[in-house]
């Protein structure tokens, strides 16, 4: 087998295994989505039912809820491997660890980020956001949630097996995700105001490119440190 084919096989194997496992333990995935739904419903309860106000706040609030939901779900990225010893087997693979990490993050996004995206237009109705604007918001989430998964993976690797890991992960990763939050919410707001969101989307795209380049490497380094 050529190296390219081997890499393709291992990538596909990891994605397949993780998606299969997420399907077999759907409860966990659905719980994360339910958290997103509940969080989105809390803001109107707290702020009041004024539709105009809610509409202007919608992109920001949906983005914050997506960010928090993403943080909660990323804690389980490597937890199982660490617990049952599979992490060692991952580290001992002859393929680059960063590549395998990318596969894991990809699978994680498919099972947590993508469903969030799908729910967003529905939840945006609670805020009185018209369909076109909510689709634009979903587009910003499409580019932004992979970045959240990638940066979250770095935090997950650093806090593997540490007590109080979930809260610690949030503390470490949330400040690093601030730029994505800023650009993403601005994109949604610009779309709702009728302006183009090309600038914001390209900034989000730049964040995605940068994190695709750097985060798998950082996560791989973090995993090696955790396994020492």
């Amino acid at each position: 087998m050529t190296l390219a084919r081997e890499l393709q096989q291992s990538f596909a194997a990891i994605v397949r295994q993780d998606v299969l496992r997420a399907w077999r333990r759907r409860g966990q995935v659905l719980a994360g989505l339910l958290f997103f739904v509940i969080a989105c419903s809390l803001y109107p309860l707290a702020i009041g039912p004024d539709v105009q106000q809610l509409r202007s706040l919608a992109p920001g609030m949906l983005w914050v809820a997506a960010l928090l939901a993403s943080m909660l779900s990323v804690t389980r990225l490597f937890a199982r491997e660490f617990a049952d010893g599979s992490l060692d087997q991952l580290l001992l693979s002859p393929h680059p660890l960063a590549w395998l990490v990318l596969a894991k993050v990809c699978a994680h996004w498919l099972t947590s980020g993508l469903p969030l995206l799908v729910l967003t237009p529905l939840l945006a109705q609670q805020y009185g956001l018209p369909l076109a604007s909510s689709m634009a918001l979903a587009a910003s989430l499409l580019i932004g949630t992979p970045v959240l998964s990638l940066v979250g993976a770095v935090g997950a690797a650093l806090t593997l097996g540490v007590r109080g890991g979930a809260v610690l992960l949030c503390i470490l990763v949330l400040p690093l995700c601030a730029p994505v939050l800023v650009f993403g919410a601005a994109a949604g707001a610009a779309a709702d105001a009728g302006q183009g969101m090309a600038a914001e989307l390209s900034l989000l795209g730049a964040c995605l490119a940068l994190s695709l380049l750097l985060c798998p490497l950082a996560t791989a380094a973090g995993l090696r440190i955790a396994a020492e």
Partner: protein
Amino acid sequence: MSLAGGCHEHASEQGPKFGARGLGVQRGGRAVLEGIDFALDPGELLELRGPNGSGKSSLLRVLCALMPPAAGELRWRGEPVRAGDARFQRASAYLGHADGIDADLGVAENLHFAARLAGQEASAAQVDAALSQVGLAGAGPLAVRSLSQGQRRRIALARLALRRCDLWLLDEPHSGLDAQAATQFDGLLRAHLDGGGIAVVATHHALDLQGRTLRLDA
């Protein structure tokens, strides 16, 4: 039966294949072992013996490059070994205390995954053959969740049989195995050594095989 793209290479060089010189091992920031030296040729077995806490597991993790040594160096086929060294990792297999088996998947699924992760392709027949060698013939479609601790350990051993590598690094392979399974594993190990493989095994059990012993008393 070796896998397509398997990792057997002809031992054409002279000199020890796997060796350590002045190896030091740390655990939790403290030195546990110092000055470990050994050199192993194809077909040789090294047993690591010592009481609990003497550093057997830590030494094995250093030997498979999961942990960098505190001092000294490791050599495989004359070249020093570093973390992430693909050449070394294709040729070696590690079995730790934990099985490294995914409880949410099936038995055969686990073995196929392990093969792909190691850059190899395993056919269903090869997976079945590996399972038969550890006494789990026909267990392919079963869910790991339904198996006992000893059976899960055997799946991890089947992973070794499937990959057919030159170097085995095993941490207490007998743990959880009944007498029959232990005998089957000894046969597996003997076949590996006879085929020119090297094995470093940390064990409390006396292995019924000719080999050198490294005592790690505190």
